[in-house]
Structure formats: structure tokens, C-alpha cells
């Protein structure tokens, strides 16, 4: 009797101990905006995407225990950096993913560099992450301001939109966006006819839009963001600018903005995106599965989170630990391969190199139904889509 009990106890201990010895514990922190402006673009959908990546990777059968944490950084850099620090210091988080809002991402970038962990940035736009602020611990996964603005600028000129007029938000970000896009337009053989600057958070764009209309430019470039872009598109629709033959080019606009505007208002708008749900069978299948869980098609940011987490977990499996340096080295040495971007590599400066897509918003007649917003105008190859390393001011990549 005694012996049987002892045997049972040993067996029980052994049963508990075996998987614990072999397992690698991975903690993924999904840090994004869950209450504000970017909650639709990233938010809970990014957590869903991360969970799908863990399921598809089949972590459980590979003896890797994955836990996903999530938090709201409220678009405040101090809140975001505080959460990131606390996750790494007290919760032993190995990798932080997503982080839309450039200022928060730059803050998290510094924290992760200091603590030597991994930051997979799917949400933020600023191309400084692979430029002045580049870090060996950060991989900028999905898109950046350069690829959105310049992709649109170049492709529009090639499509025949060779005269431009800029509607620019009057602050550093707007000026930079206008300057960079104008350079690309001119380099591609186009001409900039003029520009007009509006204050940040304007409500009335009528005088600016009339100037843009009377300039006779074929393309009106919207070098602004967020509410300003949405308002300028709405008011452009009231003036019938697109119907009269001019095109609007959004330089920093997301698919969620188009959904919010509606096809009637946004039709004809041209934008660059990293993900198109019905591009091929793989993306369509992924989108359908995502929609089942989250109720909406994935945005490029959410799809990017899936792709990034999947590649990270493959790295953990290959290296056999969650050691940040080893996993990062593996991730940069091996191409990522997933239904979102196909096969794609990671450059020395931390830029994930994949194709981008030039899209145009369909008119209500062209749309086949709910969530059918875009038609594909052109595919921009990765090498053209992103800024070259030489232009990036990333010290690390030049060595």
C-alpha cells in the first residue's frame, strides 16, 4: 500500500516535471491603442492575430509555452514606455509587438534596446525606426511613412498623374511628408504645381480645396494624417473634386479610414497598403479565418502582427530558447514565410522587406459587397517600396 502510494506520487511528480523541463516559456506583449484613434486599426484585432499565429505555429506540440499579454498605451509615450518597462522587468515579457503611434513606438524602441529584448513594430509609421533611431532589437514589420507616401507618389506619376498639388498639415510631420513625396514625384518625371498649408486639426478645408481645384493639378496629395485627412476627403467629396477629374492621393491613410468614410465619399482615392484581403488565395483564406474570430477583415497592421509573431516563434523553435540576441539573429538570417507577405527578408537596419500595393477605392457600383473596398492598381516591389539603407541615416547598418 505504502509502496503503491510512493510510486503514484513519483509518477505524478515525473509527469509534471517532464514537460516543464523541456518547455521554453515565451511571453508576448501586444501593446497598442485599445481606446482611441487606432483601436480599429490595431486594438483587440492585433491580439486576435497574435493568438492565431500561436495556434498556427502549433506551439503546444513543440513544447513552447506561449502567453500573450495585452495593454492599452492610450497613445501616450510615457504610459507606453512605462508598460513596456514593467512588462520586461516584472512580467518577463520577451517580445513586444504592434505599438501604433510613432511617439510611443520610439519610446518603446529605446526601452527594448536598453533591456535587450525584441520589438516587432507592426503598428507605427515613422521611418525613423529604421533611420536615426534604428536599433538591433527592433524589426519594423509592416509599413512606414516613406513606403506609404513614396509608393503612392511614384506609382501615381507612372499611372499618368504627373502634376501635383499638396494640401499639407502645417507642422513638422506634414512638411516632411510633402517634401519626401514631392522629391519622388519630381524624380519620376512629374511636376509639383503648388501647395497650401492648413493648421493642424482644421475643420474647414474649403478655401484650401478651392486652391487645389483651381491649380489644375491632376493629383491632390494629402500630406496630413488622421482626422485632417478624413475631413479633407469628406469636403473634397462635397466639392465634387474627384468626379471633376482630379485624383486625391492619401499619403498616410489606412483601410479603416476608408471604411469610416464610406465608398460614396472616398471613391477614387488612391493609397498604398501592405495588405489586400483578396490579393490571392492565401490572403483570402487568412482574412476569412480572421473575420470569423474578430468580425472584420484584418488591417495591414493586424496582418503584420500575425506575420511577425509567426516568424518570431519559428526563431524560438530553431534556436531552442527565448534568448533575444540569438532569436533576432535567426530572424534576420532566415526569410519569413507566411500567407500575408509570402517570402520576405529582414534588412540589416531592421526593415522587413516585402511588396506594397497601390490601391484605389472602388465606387459604390464597383463594390461587390461589404468590405470590398479596393482595386489593385499596381504592386510595388519591396526594393522600390522602402527607403534604401544609404538614405536612412542608420548608423548600425553602415558598419
Amino acid at each position, binding site marked *: 500500500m505504502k509502496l503503491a502510494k510512493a510510486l503514484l506520487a513519483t509518477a505524478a511528480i515525473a509527469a509534471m516535471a517532464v514537460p516543464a523541463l523541456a518547455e521554453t516559456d515565451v511571453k508576448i506583449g501586444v501593446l497598442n491603442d485599445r481606446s482611441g484613434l487606432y483601436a480599429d486599426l490595431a486594438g483587440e484585432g492585433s491580439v486576435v492575430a497574435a493568438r492565431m499565429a500561436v495556434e498556427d505555429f502549433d506551439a503546444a506540440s513543440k513544447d513552447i509555452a506561449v502567453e500573450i499579454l495585452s495593454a492599452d498605451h492610450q497613445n501616450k509615450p510615457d*504610459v507606453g514606455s512605462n508598460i513596456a518597462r*514593467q512588462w520586461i522587468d516584472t512580467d518577463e515579457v520577451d517580445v513586444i509587438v504592434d505599438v501604433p503611434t510613432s*511617439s510611443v513606438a520610439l519610446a518603446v524602441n*529605446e526601452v527594448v534596446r536598453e533591456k535587450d529584448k525584441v520589438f516587432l513594430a507592426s503598428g507605427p509609421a515613422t521611418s525613423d525606426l529604421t533611420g536615426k533611431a534604428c536599433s538591433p532589437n527592433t524589426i519594423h514589420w509592416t509599413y512606414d511613412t516613406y513606403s506609404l507616401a513614396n509608393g503612392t507618389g511614384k506609382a501615381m506619376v507612372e499611372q499618368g498623374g504627373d502634376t501635383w498639388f499638396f494640401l499639407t498639415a502645417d507642422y*513638422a510631420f506634414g512638411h516632411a511628408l510633402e517634401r519626401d513625396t514631392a522629391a519622388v514625384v519630381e524624380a519620376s518625371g512629374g511636376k509639383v504645381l503648388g501647395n497650401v498649408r492648413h493648421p493642424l486639426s482644421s475643420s474647414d478645408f474649403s478655401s484650401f480645396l478651392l486652391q487645389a481645384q483651381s491649380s489644375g493639378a491632376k493629383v491632390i496629395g494629402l500630406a496630413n494624417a488622421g482626422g485632417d485627412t478624413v475631413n479633407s476627403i469628406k469636403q473634397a467629396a462635397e466639392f465634387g473634386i474627384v468626379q471633376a477629374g482630379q485624383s486625391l492621393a492619401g499619403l498616410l491613410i489606412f483601410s479603416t479610414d476608408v471604411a469610416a468614410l464610406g465608398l460614396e465619399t472616398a471613391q477614387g482615392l488612391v493609397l498604398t497598403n501592405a495588405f489586400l484581403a483578396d490579393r490571392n488565395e492565401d490572403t483570402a483564406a487568412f482574412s476569412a479565418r480572421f473575420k470569423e474570430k474578430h468580425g472584420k477583415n484584418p488591417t495591414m497592421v493586424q496582418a503584420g502582427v500575425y506575420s511577425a509573431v509567426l516568424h518570431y516563434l519559428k526563431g524560438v523553435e530553431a534556436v531552442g530558447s527565448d534568448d533575444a540576441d540569438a532569436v533576432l539573429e535567426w530572424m534576420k538570417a532566415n526569410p519569413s514565410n507566411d500567407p500575408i507577405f509570402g517570402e520576405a527578408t529582414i534588412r540589416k537596419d531592421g526593415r522587413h522587406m516585402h511588396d506594397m500595393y497601390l490601391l484605389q477605392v472602388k465606387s459604390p457600383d464597383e463594390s461587390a459587397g461589404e468590405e470590398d473596398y479596393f482595386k489593385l492598381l499596381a504592386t510595388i516591389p519591396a526594393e522600390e517600396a522602402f527607403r534604401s539603407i544609404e538614405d536612412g541615416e542608420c548608423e548600425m547598418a553602415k558598419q
Partner: protein
Amino acid sequence: MAGESDVVAAAAMPTVREPAWMPRHHLVLFALLLAGLLVAPFMLYPIFLMKVLCFALFASAFNLLLGYGGLLSFGHAAYFGMASYVSAHAAKVWGLTPELAILSGTLIAAVLGLVFGALAIRRQGIYFAMVTLAFAQMVYFFSLQAPFTGGEDGIQAVPRGHLFGLFDLSRPEPLYFFVLAIFFGGILLIYRIIHSPFGQVLKAIRQNEARAISLGYQVNRYKLAVFVLSAALSGLAGATKAIVFQLASLTDVYWAMSGEVVLMTLLGGMGTVFGPLVGAAVIVTMQNYLASFGDWVTIIQGAIFVIAVLLFREGIVGVIAKWTKKPL
């Protein structure tokens, strides 16, 4: 009200000898607070505690103006945020040591306070609040456009440096005790200001300005002085925060920050010494530990504010002070 009860308490207990500079229960509370804060970093996450300390100092500085000067400023983010920009810039670009960076931030906040205050105190009530808000918005748009602030990216990767060139602040322990020293010094200074003859005159002005004028006080000078003190101490908090978080961003100059400090002060107890500390601790803790609830944080924060206004208008510490019948 606090002033009246002070007088009553003093009159009722003339025989009890207390240290002239601080009643005994305040001494005990300060001692407890200091002891708690000395032990706290070994139990709680130090960076979180430093955030609480910075905001507690900010709320106390605001309370000096609202609770004792009777002036509702709706633009205190300007001093807090501008000081954090200047201190971050001084530490990063000019390479100053942290104590000098913080001092330069504080100084700029004082200068801003002097200019804005001199104009704002000419108006009263809602007009005063609106003037301060307008100036704060000017500072916000200046910060958005000025090249040294980095626009919406803010100033990132600010070095913490070595205190007096000796103590390495990149480790959390020395940094914590440095921040604690600043906080405690700031709070004691505010306490001293409140209980000085100057503070008594402020209370008199708040309760009846016309009578204070008729007694021969230069009311506007007192108001301006307290405004500058409050702005400078807010700046001290903001400058310290920039060194702790190694960043300065638009969040700190945005009008929502001005609103947040009003919320902290009212929730903790306006016109009490310890109220703003409690209010700041409650709000920062909520923002920090409820972050995983997403949009519920703002809803919970709003609900708590509504409850506070409906049920205990004096704030948490204000209610306790009423029960214990002692000014806190």
C-alpha cells in the same frame, strides 16, 4: 473653511505646545509618508513609484494655486510640459548633468508662469481659466512646431546621466531616491508656503478679495507670486519626469494633461496638503494597472470622478479631514 478651522483649533488648544512650524499630526503623517516611500521601492515597481511621485508633486503645485490661492488655472500642462522639454533638451543636446537639466526646466516654467500669470490675474473666474487655457494652447502649438521638440515624436532617449557627476542614475535605486528627495523637498516647500504669513494672506484673498484689498494688501502681487511658485513647482515635476522616463512628448503639454491634474486634485481633496498626493496616486495607479482593460480605463476614471463630485465633494482626504476634524 480650512482657515477658519485652523483658527478655531488654535484657539481651543492654547495650552498644547506643538512645534511652531508644524502641528503634531502633520509631523506624524509626513514621517509615515517618508518611511513608506523609503520602503516602497523594495515592494513595488520603482519606475511606477517615480511616476506617482512626479504627478503627486505636480498636483500639489496645482493645488497650491487652486486650493490656497483660489485660482483655477486650466493651463498647467504648459509649465509641466515645457519644463520637461527644456530639461530633456538640456540633458540630451547640451549634455548637462541631471540636476542642472531639471533646474533649467524649472526656471523656464517659472519665467512662463511670470509672463502668463501677469496677464491672466487681471481677470477672474471663468475668464482667468480661459486665459490660462489659451496660453497653454499657444505653448502646445509652439511645441508642435518648434524644431527642438521633435514635433509629435517628442524628444526620445534622454540620457539620465550622473547626479553631480557622481551617482549613476541609469540604475533604478539611485534614481528613485533622487526623485524622492525632489518630491519631498517640493512638498515641504509647498507646506511651508501654505503655512507662512504669505499663505495666510492668500487664504484671506481667496475668501474675500475685496476685504483683503481694503486691509491694504496688494492683492495682485500675492496672486502673481503664488502663480509663479505654482508654475515653477509644476515645472520641477515635469522636468523630473523627463529624466525618469527619458522622454518628453506632446502628451505633457496637451490640454488633457491640464484636465488630469484638476481631476487628481479634486479627487484627492482640494485645499488639503495630502489630498493631491492621494489623488495622483489613485489616478496613476488606475492608468497603470488597468491598462489591460483598454477603453474601460477612461470610463472608470470618469465614473469615479462623477461619484466623487456627487458623494464626497471635498475629495478623499477632504472627507477624512472632516471626520477627524483636523485639517490635513
